[in-house]
């Protein structure tokens, strides 16, 4: 399928056709990342749609999504490649020691990063490096080569370079600061919580079965509670979940009992739940 990349606005429309609503600033960042073939570093609070961006992009472009979920202790063997040691040992014992010939391409186990730059691909995939802030600093320095040159150097084998550059999206929840060297190899975008208008568009695109009036009330309430002092502010993911639940309840309008019963979809901390429950009536009156 074809996807119009002629301008940021065309890209914005293309993404919204796939149910992903972006503002013009994010559209520009994605547009430039695609046109300039640069990785895009997306930072923001959990649940503002960072991972979703990569998924929708792969979907819209009709290419594969290769995903690497980061975690502490993530190393090369899990992220890029590993030698098939059992096979190497078997071969050594079958035909005696010959170290050099052991490190061949067919002995290589390809992990996500290597898969993404595989030369045999006809179409570059979207590579999602998710939650880089969970990985440790050692892993970041390894990524530098990949993000700058789209290549991975394997000491025993040589350098493997992408023929078609993958579209790289790196996300961070900002639980720690990622090194500047890594960010400077990327385009950078900070995703904020959406404006009321954007959020309404998102809810209506994702939960079309919800009546217009209820959708507006759901969004107004979420926007209102985001201004409260909370341990975890609900993201877009939470407001969409909540909107789905409200749609299932089939109400004429948003009312306190239904809201009270479904608050668990918006708030994931006990203290937050208590706080909102205690002042639910005025909050609701203000929003609806």
């Amino acid at each position, binding site marked *: 399928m074809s996807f119009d990349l002629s*301008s*940021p606005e065309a890209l914005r429309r293309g993404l919204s056709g796939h149910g992903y609503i972006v*503002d*013009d*600033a994010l*559209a*520009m*960042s994605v*547009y*430039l990342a695609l*046109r*300039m073939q*640069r990785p895009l*570093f997306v*930072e923001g*609070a959990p649940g503002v749609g960072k991972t979703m961006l990569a998924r929708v992009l792969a979907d819209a472009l009709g290419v594969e999504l290769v995903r690497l979920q980061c*975690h*502490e*202790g993530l*190393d090369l063997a899990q992220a890029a490649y590993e*030698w098939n*040691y*059992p096979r*190497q*040992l078997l071969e*050594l*014992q*079958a*035909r*005696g*020691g*010959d*170290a050099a010939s*052991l490190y061949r391409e067919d002995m290589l186990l390809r992990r996500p990063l290597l898969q993404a730059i595989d030369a045999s691909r006809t179409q570059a995939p979207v590579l999602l490096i998710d939650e880089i802030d969970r990985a*440790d600093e*050692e892993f970041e320095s390894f990524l530098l080569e990949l993000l700058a040159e789209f290549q991975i150097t394997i000491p025993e084998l040589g350098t493997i370079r992408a023929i078609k550059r993958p579209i790289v999206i790196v996300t961070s929840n*900002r*639980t*720690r*600061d990622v090194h*500047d060297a890594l*960010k*400077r190899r990327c*385009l*950078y*975008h*900070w995703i*904020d*919580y959406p*404006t*009321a*208008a954007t959020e309404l568009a998102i809810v209506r695109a994702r939960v079309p079965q919800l009546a217009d009036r209820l959708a507006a009330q759901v969004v107004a309430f979420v*926007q209102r509670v*985001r*201004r409260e*002092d*909370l*341990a975890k*502010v609900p993201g877009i993911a939470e407001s969409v979940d909540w909107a789905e639940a409200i749609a299932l309840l089939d109400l004429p309008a948003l009312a306190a009992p239904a809201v009270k019963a479904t608050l668990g979809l918006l708030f994931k901390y006990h203290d937050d739940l208590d706080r909102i429950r205690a002042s639910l009536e005025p909050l609701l009156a203000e929003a609806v």
Partner: protein
Amino acid sequence: MTDPATDVVGFGRALRDAGIGVGLDQLASFATALPLIAIADRREVYCAARTTLVTRREDLVVFDEVFARWFGGDEPASSPRKMPHAPRHDRGFVATSLGAYMAERAAASDPEALIPEAAKAASALERLQSKDFAACSDAERDAIARALATLELSVTRRRSLRRVTARRGRELDLAQAVRQAARRDGTVLVLPRRARKWKRRPLVVLADISGSMELYTRLVLQFLHALSRQHPTEVFVFGTRLTRITPQLALRDLDAALARAAAEIVDYAGGTRIGACLHAFGRRHAGRVVRRGAVVLVISDGLDTGAPEALAREIRSLQGRCYRLVWLNPLLGGAGYQPIAGGMAAALPYVDDFLPVRDLRSLEALAHHLAAIPRRRGARSGGKLS
């Protein structure tokens, strides 16, 4: 006159002057982006410049101002927002004026003032071992500061999830096994092992700088200064409000950083709001800095103007998040002091180690203590009077 939209180098210089570290590679990216966008559309130029030139959220506010100045026009460059954002996502940096920010960044190269003078210090230090900091003269405090700079300090470790080759370990190191076998005609003689690597625990310091506490905090921070150079350390100071001074400590000398912070966040009539400041810490910073088994050090006399229950609630939640919560109190060990009243008494059940900080000897004890925190979590003491 050159067109501002195409004078990429000039704009880069303006950003650098304002303290945003823009590299040549980033300017090149911006220049590459220009032919791809509608250059007459100011909003498009703004979005393209922002995504290619900024790498930190904190820089966005300053970037917006520099952009508006450089490209002219009255309307604000950033997107027109109708809804205000969640308060904690704005308050932090909107309050910072451009001038203050620039001064902060520009002062990065201020020289360090401490000059070691070891010769005379030794005998004088003997005397100073147990002299209360508050009773010391300025010269004596200088001597103490110099002595502190030479102390060896380390914080206890934890096992990370990263693996390294080890003599004894639970897992096989097959990569090693293949390499060794290849040298021995395919024979495996020993099975190399891997184990989880030990890493230092991050240290988070929350220090009271109101009134008399400023003196003790200064000395403890001096004491931690050498440590923070090779160890992940985050420092926050509080009075009536809380502020993070980690970046300032990395750049310039401690006295200047503390004086600035004090001018900003200590309201001499307002008293110390420990509970409120810890609450702000929990909301705005804890998720980012209290991670991976951090040791948290609170330095305060516990004289809180807020409600004791509020302080207890904050300390309890802080203790739940960290590996070890250490509270340093200069009043402890003083004549007749008992932590039985108000905030301190309420907080004590949730404190793992309650230690004095009065004199050089107590700091040495602290150094010993930080290194000796058990590597594995055992029963946490809670309110033990050491």
